[in-house]
């Protein structure tokens, strides 16, 4: 059993490891997937930054070409020199700008501003087209342009983000800077849509605590500015965040935020790239996502190793069961059968380990108990019948069936009549223990003298023999009682018992009493009554008559007649007669047969005269 238990433990551990692996194994995969998704966002952010940079360069180039327009140059030069009417110059420059950029909205230009060398707005298209004359020289990108730089910036004014590029406008003589052109490009929904198409991720643009535009529903991004604000230091140091998780409704998003350059960086302007995270790969999700091809025979699924492994596990389990459980049980049964057949004195309990060894030792202890201790009365009655009817002790449901013998009560002592009645089929009478003796019937003329009076108490009968009114004298002395059978005489009955009084029978192994449970040896042949050497006196003749009547009655009742041994039957009758004579001081005893419950039975009646 030890190896079987170890095997069960191993199988249980293996199952536990398998279940644990099923739940834990997806987690590294999840982390790896999240890492890959984060790397994808990293690449997308790098691409977005490059697009911003190239866009800025493109817009600077575009506006630089506009700055080489002769009409613009002349007008700005005039404004810078203070020549000409400002309004006229404004109209001239504005119309020229419109001519140069006919489809401003399609190009994504929000506004285009022309300033003179002092930074005063000469004209603009887009926002506030009618306004002119104010100075914007303080704007860094404008100041840079007026000093000769081509540069860009990002502004975040009035809740809008605008990418700005500015270039100097150089006089036709190419000697001095006469002004600058400033272009402001839309940085909102349009940019987000372009990025989503090009990068394959969702985009949100944040200015301060507001999401100014997004490809996702902005109502779901309410916590995005706060999340970014929590990573402001990280953004300042690394110019972007690491991949962050954001629960957006029922979606789990992964995002990277990076700041815009220029003045907008001071205004906490960020672009955020978002991607939906893959669902968590717990076993149920993995199973729900499995396809039929995943389990296809011949595919990647290791059917053969799995089947071989399972068969090996089952086989090992069965094998261990066989060598540790079934085999020992089979051997134990065989040994017990041998013990029952009297081929063994006791079981070899050292051959069995564990609980089977304990069972073997218990059986041996039981055998020891039956060998050295008196058996219960029901057992004695059974053995008595076995000794009478059959050498092997097979009662075979005869008229002396054990079921008719009532088990003796330990205390108070049972009435001997009950045992006798059970043995011989007499009608059961009320017990006399502790009570007055039953009324004594007049002696039967056939049976001889009247039976002695019943004893005054059961305490005077340590043998606990039952009392029974003689069935043969029910008409004269129905309460006649007599001793039935001594247990020791039954145990020591000869096998096969010779029909001689002076023969002391050898002891019978207790195991013989167990043969009813384990084996039924063939009945011994019934010897002929004539073969005995007993003198043919009246007693012997009576016994032979009783035997013949009993056999005949059994035949009438449809019971087997071959299993009753004449020698044992006669010996038993003599033994009973002797016991009755000794116990009741009567002269002899007479036996008669009758039918009880459809079976042959025998009654005994003491004869005093």
């Amino acid at each position, binding site marked *: 059993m030890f190896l079987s238990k170890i095997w069960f433990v191993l199988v249980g551990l293996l199952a536990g490891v398998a279940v644990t692996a099923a739940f834990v194994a997806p987690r590294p995969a999840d982390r790896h997937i999240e890492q890959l998704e984060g790397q994808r966002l990293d690449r997308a952010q790098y691409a977005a930054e490059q697009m*911003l*940079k190239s866009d*800025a*360069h493109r817009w*600077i180039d575009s506006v630089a070409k506009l700055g080489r327009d002769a009409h613009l140059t002349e007008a700005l030069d005039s404004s810078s020199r203070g020549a000409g009417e400002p309004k006229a110059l404004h109209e001239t420059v504005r119309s020229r700008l419109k001519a140069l950029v006919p489809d401003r909205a399609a190009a994504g230009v929000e506004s285009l501003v022309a300033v003179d060398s002092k*930074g005063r707005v000469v004209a603009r298209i887009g926002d506030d087209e009618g*306004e002119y004359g*104010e*100075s*914007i*020289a*303080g*704007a*860094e*990108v*404008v*100041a*840079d342009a*007026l*000093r*000769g*730089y*081509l*540069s*860009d*910036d*990002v*502004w*975040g*004014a*009035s809740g809008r983000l605008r990418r*700005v590029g500015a*270039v*100097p406008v*150089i006089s036709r003589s*190419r*000697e*001095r*800077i006469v002004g600058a052109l400033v272009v402001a490009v839309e940085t909102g929904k349009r940019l987000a849509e372009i990025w989503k198409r090009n990068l394959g991720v969702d985009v949100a643009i944040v200015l301060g605590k507001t999401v100014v535009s997004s490809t996702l529903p902005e109502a779901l991004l309410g916590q995005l500015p706060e999340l970014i604000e929590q990573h402001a230091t990280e953004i300042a140091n690394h110019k972007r965040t690491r991949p962050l998780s954001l629960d957006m409704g029922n979606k789990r998003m992964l995002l990277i935020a990076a700041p815009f*350059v*220029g*003045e907008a*960086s*001071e*205004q906490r302007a960020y672009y955020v790239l978002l991607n939906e995270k893959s669902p968590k790969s717990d076993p149920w999700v993995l199973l729900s996502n499995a396809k039929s091809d995943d389990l296809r025979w011949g595919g990647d699924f290791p059917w053969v190793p799995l089947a071989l492994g399972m068969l090996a596990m089952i086989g090992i389990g069965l094998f261990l069961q066989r060598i540790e459980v079934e085999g020992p049980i089979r051997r134990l049964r065989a040994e017990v059968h041998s013990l029952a057949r009297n081929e063994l004195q006791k079981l070899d309990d050292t051959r069995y380990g564990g609980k089977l060894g304990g069972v073997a030792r218990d059986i041996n202890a039981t055998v020891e108990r039956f060998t050295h201790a008196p058996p219960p009365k029901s057992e004695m009655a059974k053995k008595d019948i076995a000794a009478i009817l059959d050498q092997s002790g097979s009662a075979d449901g005869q008229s002396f069936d054990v079921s008719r013998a009532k088990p003796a009560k330990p205390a108070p002592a049972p009435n001997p009549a009950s045992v006798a009645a059970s043995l011989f089929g007499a009608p059961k009478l009320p017990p006399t223990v502790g009570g007055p003796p039953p009324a004594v019937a007049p002696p039967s003329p056939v049976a001889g003298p009247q039976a002695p009076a019943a004893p005054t108490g059961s305490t005077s009968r340590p043998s606990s023999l039952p009392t029974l009114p003689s069935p043969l004298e029910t008409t004269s002395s129905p309460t006649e009682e007599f001793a039935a059978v001594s247990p020791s005489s039954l145990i020591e009955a000869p096998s096969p018992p010779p029909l001689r009084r002076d023969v002391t029978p050898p002891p019978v192994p207790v195991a013989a009493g167990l043969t009813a449970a384990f084996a039924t040896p063939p009945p011994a042949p019934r010897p002929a009554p004539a073969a005995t050497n007993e003198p043919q006196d009246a007693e012997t003749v009576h016994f032979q008559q009783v035997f013949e009547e009993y056999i005949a009655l059994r035949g009438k009742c449809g019971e087997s007649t071959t299993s009753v041994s004449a020698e044992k039957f006669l010996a038993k009758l003599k033994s009973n007669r002797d016991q009755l004579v000794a116990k009741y001081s009567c002269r002899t005893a007479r036996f008669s047969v009758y039918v009880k419950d459809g079976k042959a039975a025998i009654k005994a009646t003491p004869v005093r005269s």
Partner: protein
Amino acid sequence: MMRYRLFSPLFLCGLLALAPSLATAATVHGMVSLPEEIKSGRRFLGHWRVENTTVAVQPAPARGDTVVVLVGPKPQVLAPKNTPVEIVGMQANPATVVVGEGAVVEFRNSDKVSHDLSVPGRPEIMPPERLAPGTVRKQRFGISGEYVVRCTEYPHIVISVIVTSSPFFAAVDEKGGFKLLDVPEGPATLKVWSNGRWVHEQAVEVTPRGLDLTIKVPSTANKDVTEQ
């Protein structure tokens, strides 16, 4: 003659009384060399900043945002007074003001757009408030310190307000020169404020002959100071 006799002792007494102060007054002057990142004129850079290939690039104009302050020769008191700052053309003029404790700075918006001025992170000093075009906001600064007033809409607009008790300060001109007059003798600390922060600080000993300093502000934390 009597009048002459009478005035002579008084004149001498006056000279004796003024003698110590006249004897200890000195001039501290020098040159401040700022790093390129400060002189560039850009606080917030974009992706590109390239020079044109036709005409020479002009240096950034001095906006008066570099100031030298001498602290601690002797206990002095700078009287508080109203100091105007005008925001025009999307820039503040002057960009740095040095005032005494309790002085009031008047911010005037001469632009056509509004400005939201405040001292970020110090609402108790100057909370955010929208300054409409053509209006003035008066703000008192009662505690010594340095305060950077910013415009939320246009972050490049930065106004530095230095509140100090020292009357010895001067703005650096376009070439980096400065001059402090009537500085008393003794040990003092010379500080340079530029671009919204202290960029240099050194201990000096003011002598009767005065000091001529050349201060080179390194681009990073390293400071190279040569005293002549």
